[in-house]
């Protein structure tokens, strides 16, 4: 017995087969369809989808950077910014952040809308975040009569639930009691984020504003911070935090509450990991391609056989798969 005997694909000499024109046309059509389908499969293979996974944060965390850029329609020296966390650590942020006198204007911002409306592209996001960033700080100009204050800066806080608040001096914290008519908690938030500052990532509160008509109004923001890892195809990672917010405001009678902005934040123990993944592996692609090519080829051939059998059935004089001229 020879090795040849194992051939599962015995070939027929060209003299013993008959090629037909319709078969040729069919071959061309099948080849064209196959090309399109193979390209489609390859495109599928190249396309990425975002995979959402949850991990329990394995690290021991200490500190976390908080970035803030808020404009409040009150003069700077009338504002006090403080943070109080679960470990009863009090931070007087008035010294750590820059207070810049400014005018209160609601400029139009399309940046966040643009980013919000786009589908998430992890690779672009990571690339954009690798550029260094700093919060923009307007120049000080003390001559002008500014009515508003821009509070801007980044600071480190314990990674614990906490409450960061902006209050009027003498209301809530000891200090010179501020005249009630000056208090107005109308504010605009340009940036509020946790972790390293990435201007390309838009958080729910970015570019939002609230207008207050009353002196005694408190704005409460309840934030739940979810640590998030973005990972692109080349396993490059970006560690950041997302948050969800629920909010409410309330007006009260003078001296029955503390007017101000209150950001109560809490951390989720789970870390969300968003990784870019292709929808199938290379092996899977090869299996699919083999199935595709083989399947179409054989099926089209069978269809052709059946069709020509029917064709010759109605034209019996051409039942001519006989040996003509070998």
């Amino acid at each position, binding site marked *: 017995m020879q090795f040849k005997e194992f051939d*599962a694909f*015995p070939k*027929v000499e*060209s003299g*013993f*087969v*008959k*090629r*037909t*024109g*319709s*078969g*040729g*046309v*069919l*071959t*061309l059509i*099948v080849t064209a369809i196959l090309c399109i*389908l193979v390209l*489609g499969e390859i495109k599928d293979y190249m396309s990425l989808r*975002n995979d*959402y996974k*949850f991990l329990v944060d394995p690290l021991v965390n200490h500190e976390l950077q908080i970035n803030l850029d808020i404009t409040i329609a009150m003069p700077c020296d009338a504002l006090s910014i403080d943070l109080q966390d679960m470990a009863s650590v009090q931070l007087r942020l008035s010294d750590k952040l820059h207070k810049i006198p400014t005018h209160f204007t609601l400029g139009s911002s399309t940046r966040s809308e643009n980013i919000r409306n786009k589908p998430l592209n992890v690779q672009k996001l990571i690339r954009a975040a690798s550029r260094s960033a700093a919060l923009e700080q307007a120049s000080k100009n003390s001559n002008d009569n500014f009515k508003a204050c821009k509070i801007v800066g980044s600071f480190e806080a314990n990674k614990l639930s906490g409450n960061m608040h902006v209050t009027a001096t003498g209301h809530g914290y000891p200090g010179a009691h501020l005249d009630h008519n000056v208090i107005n908690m109308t504010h605009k938030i340009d940036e509020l984020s946790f972790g390293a500052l990435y201007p390309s990532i838009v*958080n*729910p*509160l970015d570019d*939002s504003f609230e207008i207050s008509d009353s002196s005694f109004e408190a704005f409460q923001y*309840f934030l*739940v911070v*979810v640590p*998030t890892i973005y990972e692109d195809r080349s396993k490059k990672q970006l560690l950041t935090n*997302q*948050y*969800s*917010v*629920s*909010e*409410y405001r*309330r007006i*009260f009678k003078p001296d*029955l509450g503390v007017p101000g902005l209150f950001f109560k934040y809490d951390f*989720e123990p789970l870390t*969300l990991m968003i990784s870019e993944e292709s929808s199938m592996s290379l092996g899977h692609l090869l299996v*699919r391609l083999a*199935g*595709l090519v*083989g*399947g*179409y*080829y*054989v*099926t*089209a*051939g*069978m269809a*052709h*056989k059946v069709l020509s059998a029917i064709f010759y059935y109605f034209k019996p004089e051409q039942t001519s*798969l*006989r*040996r003509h001229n070998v």
Partner: protein
Amino acid sequence: MAKTTLSRFKNFDAYAKTLDDFRVKTSTGAAVTLVSAFIILTLLLGEFFDYRSIHLESSLVVDSGRKEKMSIDFDITFPKIPCYILTLDVMDVAGEHQSDITHSVYKVQLSPDGTEIKREKSPNLGNTGPDPEEVGENYCGDCGGAERPESGCCNTCEDVRQAYVRSGWSFNHPEGIEQCVREGYMEKMKEQAKQGCRMHGQLTVNKVAGNFHIAPGRSFQRSNMHVHDIQQYLENGLDFSHHIKHLSFGKLVPNVHNPLDDQIVNNAEGLYMFQYYIKVVGTTYHYLNKLPVKTNQYSVTQFNRNLHFKDALGQVRQPNGLPGVFFNFDISPMMVVQKEERKSFTSFLTGVCAIVGGIFTVASIIDGAIWRAERTLKRKMELGKAL
């Protein structure tokens, strides 16, 4: 003519056919063909059902929505408490009445056997003024010494009751009040005493943590506190048996199950406080060919406690809590995204071809092997070698 055009493509034919003279048909071949045809048919059916069925792809993301509204649909029956006792309040997390809610809540009076008697839109509950012919044009009712309303008159029994509430008095003896006697308040109470109540409707609230509760007695706001007037019910207690037919926090979508639907609590005599702690999880459901729907799912834990107890002297103690049914809801920071997906038509076609082609090829290999084996065997038998 057509033949010559066609024959130009002859050389491309990858489906060259073996001439009939060189083809052998065998009965085993026919059997293999039939079997493989059967297998192909079954697999094709499976593939077709897989193509038509809808797969659900779900993922969990951080809910980044802001200032969203949430609608609460409910339908709760209290078989043992008449409607006039019950009030519904919606509060935010700080215990204040939530502002800017829209609602359409109905109270349906139920007879003791559960049939519906009268349907009313809350809160306009029987607050009709007295008949002017009976009392005269310039009638101005006395408030029984209690704080008068802005109009200065208490023309109905309800007005007097509210004046009592404003003064912080309890409204225990309506039979001594002229307006109530005229309106037949006591008769109405007696008549309704055995009735039940079904409350149903829809509330639209801000999507922030809060609660809504159904509790006895008119509620009011006093010095930043939410208070219910329950003095008159303390002595005898109330049976807060209830049947939650339906409670949902948004539109119904497939695969979302509301755990409180058809929740029945019976035999709750005394002064029970039923607390339902609800965690609301935002859900976006993407239909295959409809716009996505934003809704909410929830999980719930329940807890209840009897506030009614008497001390050693048989005196009823002041309860440290409010009887009633409370739904405390909290909003989860995560959001579930569910997407309906179906295999594309091309991938279905590929699957079909792979099945047909694959099975037929395999079958032909098997057939070839059988045929060869048969032939070898025959040849050897002819030579007298076999057996």
